[in-house]
Every structure is written in C-alpha cells, then in structure tokens.
C-alpha cells in the first residue's frame, strides 16, 4: 500500500462547495530517463485517479508521464450527504491503490 495524504473537510454544510486534495507517494517514472550503464528506466506511472462519493463518481483524471512524482490533485465537489469519499489510483500494470476519508454533512 502506497502512502497517501488526503485532505477532506471533517464537516460541511449541505450544499457547500468543498475542496478536496489528494496526494499519493509514487515515483511516476516517465520511461524516458536513462539509468546506470545506459539502461533505460522503464515507464511506471499512475495513469488514473477516480473519486467516488455518495455512490457517484465525482472526479476522475487521466494522468500522463508529464505529471511529476508524488502526484498532487485538487478538486471541488458539493457536500451532499454524510459518508465516505473513496479514492482509487490505478497504475500502468493495473494495480489499484485505495484510500478513503469520511465527511459529516449537516
């Protein structure tokens, strides 16, 4: 499990626009770097982030090699109900890393 750092407000008013931040520890190897002895370091990146909240996909992003290491993503969504925001980061090889945060909506 990769380390993740989520910033989700603990509480919000119903209908309030909230800012969500998500960062995951990942080298985001582009595949263009040369390692020792001229051997190319293979590409290994996270290529998709999806956030699900209240049974709906509220945010999705396709990431490409231009994104730097430890990708940091910020977006806004509307606080509709108390519940869990689930984050899924997908790697090139199909591996999925998950994290979640809880929000209480009054």
């Amino acid at each position: 499990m990769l380390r993740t750092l989520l910033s989700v407000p603990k509480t919000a008013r119903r209908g309030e626009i909230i800012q969500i931040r998500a960062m995951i520890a990942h080298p985001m190897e582009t595949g263009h770097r040369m390692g020792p002895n001229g051997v190319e370091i293979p590409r290994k990146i996270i290529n998709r982030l999806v956030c699900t909240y209240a049974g709906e996909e509220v945010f999705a992003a396709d990431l490409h090699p231009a994104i730097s290491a430890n990708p940091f993503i910020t977006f806004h969504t509307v606080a509709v109900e108390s519940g869990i925001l689930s984050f899924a980061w997908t790697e090139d090889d199909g591996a999925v890393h998950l994290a979640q945060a809880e929000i209480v909506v009054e």
Partner: protein
Amino acid sequence: MQEDDTANPGMLWVLEGEQLWQQAAGEAGRSCQDCHGAATSMRGVAARYPAFDTGRSRPVDLAGRINICRTGHQRASPLGHEAPDMLALTAFVAHQSRGMPVVPDQDPRIEPFRENGRRIFEQRMGQLDLACSSCHQAHAGNRLGGSAITEGQVNGYPLYRMEWQSLGSLRRRLNNCMIGIRAEPFPEDAPEMVDLELYLTARGAGLPIETPAVRP
C-alpha cells in the same frame, strides 16, 4: 507549499515515519515507541543535533543517533542515510521540533569537532578549487548564472527537493555540492560530514526547524 501540510510532499515521509515509530524492529522486537513513548517526547531533539555522544566520544547526527538505538537497543541492522526508512524516521523525529529554534550543543567537548567543521567549510577543494564559504558566505544573496546563491542553511533537513522528486538528507545535498565543485565526496561513514553538519547547524543557530522543507 512547505507550509501547507496537505500539499507538502515531505509529509508523505513524515507519515511513513509515524508508522515506523510504532513498528517493532530487530531481534529485540522493540519499536521506538516502546522506549520513547509518544513521538511528542522527541520535541526539541532535532533542534540540538548533532550532539555529543559520550559513548563514542564524538558528535553524532540524528541518523547516527537513530542507528545507535537500532543496533544497541533494537539489535537491528543500521540504516544508510538515504535508506527510505531512515529518511522517514529522521523526517518524523525532526518534524516534532518544527518551529523550534536551532540551539547548538553547548557541551565543551564538542568544540574541537565544530572547529573542524568550520575548517572544512572554509577549505578550498575540488577541481574548481572552491570552498563552501567561497559562495555561501562571500556571495550569499548574489547570483550564479541566474540561480540565487543561498546562505546554505540546514534547518529544514531532511527535505523534499523538486530536483530529486523525493525527500533527501543533508548528506545527499552535501554530496551534490561537492560533486558540483568537482571534488570527491566524503564517504558515507566519514566523521567529517558530522563535523561539517555540526558547524552548519551552529552557523544557523536561532533559525526555526522547518522539517520537512520544500526546495527547488
């Protein structure tokens, strides 16, 4: 970016260090927490390191101190300065002192080592025949080919460097400095590196600990 804990990539290592603090290690099967208790007990520690170690009759840096704990109390193998676990632990421990001013160790036995550090700082070396002080003392605030010449203060280490796309120790930075002036970097276990760090922290006495800092 540095001041926002939700945006500072160095915090990923601090979080890892928090996990490692509670994790048993070595043949003794003890965690840092088993002896030291809560991490808040580390408040103020990084602010006075490197410190004199009576057992070794010389100063040790924070990573050296953690290795003394690992080999002596946990009976685990020592970690290199850039080992992911060591970066996480040093970041986590130093982070506990964030905001506190750097206070150099006042033990009189440490003076000769600090003086050695000052000598290294002012010693010309490498193919370019430059000393640290040539740029960081004499020309601090000026520019070298467009890049700002800083004072070279060390109160934010270990820090996240954009160039590295990763957290790194002061050792890593000093090695790069020496490669930059085309000098042979000191070996990993060189006592000179601790002496130099000892001088550098004294040179920045009073600056607040910023670990984990963010730098270009």
